[in-house]
């Protein structure tokens, strides 16, 4: 921890082992993490407990169902394969949309960021499109791509595109000229410049864009399913609400929440690894 002191001499002899103070500090930090984790779990348990108790006493279960009923519905879905079928469809649309949107968004964001002329020419059009509520595009996509999975992928891709595009654009713009000049003088060509400086420098922004857009990719797919479809978690929720099956509506929501949180957790890990240099 004391790397920043005494830079003059003895750089080679500086001890790197853990002293008692370091161990004590780490033990305290890990205790703290444990306490926070326990509180985190307790909060969840308390909320679910409250829901269970409130259901039937404070509020009519018709409106809020109850955790027990939701779990029962989920159990049924798992056993009869409903969950696997529909979740697979929704995740497929999510990831396809995410992949397409991220790829196109990244590529265009990079081009716009690197070439000022392109950014200037297209800026008003991109801004105008960005301002459109993406949900308003759903009917159009259904007309173009039908009620199959393609329209959901399109929906999801459009939402992801803008988030990744704007972040990549910002990231590429943000690359310090100092690094670019330094690497140029070392003899780097455009490709090396891109790989060595621009991509790693923009990585923080791009990753933020990707991370933020995952839930939106899911939202895009589900919104598409709401509008018209015959498969997917969105379809399950829409169908359940049609027949006033509140437990199934909540079960669908729970599945979406868990799916979104899991994907975000994975991305957070990736981000931590890629950006470990930020110390």
């Amino acid at each position, binding site marked *: 921890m004391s*790397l*920043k*002191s005494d*830079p*003059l*001499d003895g*750089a*080679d002899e*500086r001890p*790197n082992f853990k002293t008692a103070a370091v161990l004590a500090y780490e033990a305290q930090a890990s205790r703290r993490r444990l306490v926070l984790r326990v509180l985190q779990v307790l909060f969840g348990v308390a909320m679910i407990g409250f829901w269970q108790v409130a259901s039937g006493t404070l509020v009519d279960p018709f409106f809020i169902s109850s955790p027990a009923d939701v779990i029962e519905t989920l159990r049924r879905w798992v056993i009869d394969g409903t969950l696997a079928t529909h979740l697979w469809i929704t995740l497929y649309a999510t990831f396809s949309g995410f992949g397409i949107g991220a790829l196109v968004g990244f590529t265009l964001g990079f081009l716009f960021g690197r070439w000022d002329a392109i950014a200037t020419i297209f800026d008003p059009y991109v801004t105008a499109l960005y301002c459109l509520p993406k949900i308003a595009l759903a009917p159009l996509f259904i007309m173009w791509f039908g009620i199959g999975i393609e329209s959901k992928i399109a929906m999801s891709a459009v939402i992801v595109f803008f988030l990744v595009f704007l972040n990549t654009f910002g990231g590429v713009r943000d690359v310090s000229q*100092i*690094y670019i*000049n*330094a*690497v*140029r*003088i*070392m*003899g*780097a060509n455009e490709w*090396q410049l891109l790989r*060595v*400086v621009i991509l*790693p*420098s923009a*990585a923080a922004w791009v990753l933020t864009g990707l991370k933020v857009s995952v839930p939106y990719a899911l939202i895009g797919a589900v919104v598409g399913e709401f509008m018209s479809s015959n498969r997917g978690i969105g379809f399950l929720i829409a169908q359940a609400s049609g027949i006033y099956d509140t437990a199934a509506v909540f079960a669908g929501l729970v599945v979406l929440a868990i799916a979104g949180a899991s994907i975000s957790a994975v991305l957070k890990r990736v981000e931590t690894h890629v*950006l*470990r*240099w*930020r*110390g």
Partner: protein
Amino acid sequence: MTLVVDEVTKHFIARGQEVAALSPVSMTIETGEFVAFVGPSGCGKSTLLNMIAGIFQPTSGQILHDGTAVLGANRQVGYMTQMDSLLPWRTVEQNVLLPLQIQGQSRGESAERADALLRMVNLAKFKNHFPLELSGGMRKRAALAQLLVYDPGTLLMDEPFGALDAQLKLVMQGELLKIWEDTGKTVVFVTHDLTEAISLAQRVIVFTGQPGAIKHESRIELGRGRDVFKVRFAPEFHDYYETLWAELAPEIHKGEEL
């Protein structure tokens, strides 16, 4: 690697105004020479260095490096600025390896060379640290290793030690002099610190205030094997200082009046 600056000028256009940063400047820097540029802020000394490095082109005139005009990024020079140019997302070792990697050199040989340089600047144990985990002095030493790893014939240094504290500055100056003596590289060193210029250089060139032009030149005859810690107490040092200060001082005041 003779460096010839031939009637070079530089104008910038900023906020609808044309600003002359450098009036015609000519000089010849011989191979193996250690030259320092001093002058007030905005005198175009860094601009000239940037043009020698090929970061941008002169408005008129030309720069010849070893007989060839510098038209794009000059790959025969190593450039070190006051700013930290180590890439923060690469470890110290990866940063030092970078120039060799860009030149497409084999991994094994590169690693050996990087290792040797990291040992030379006393950073071998920190090769897997990221720059943000190091102190300012350690980052400078890493930058020095990166600068030397591909063995450029000419080192361009733009106030490289400006951000360091006084003691560390002396240590780094000492290391630079030793490297220069050992390798016989050409060094062009920009500073606004007269003491630094006299301690290090064989020739000090004083620039006028904006637009920059060469005002005065002094040969510093303090010997090659000088000791940066002691040289400032030599009687000749004070003579050089007074002469150069007499040239430099009015330029600084000129800048203040603007």
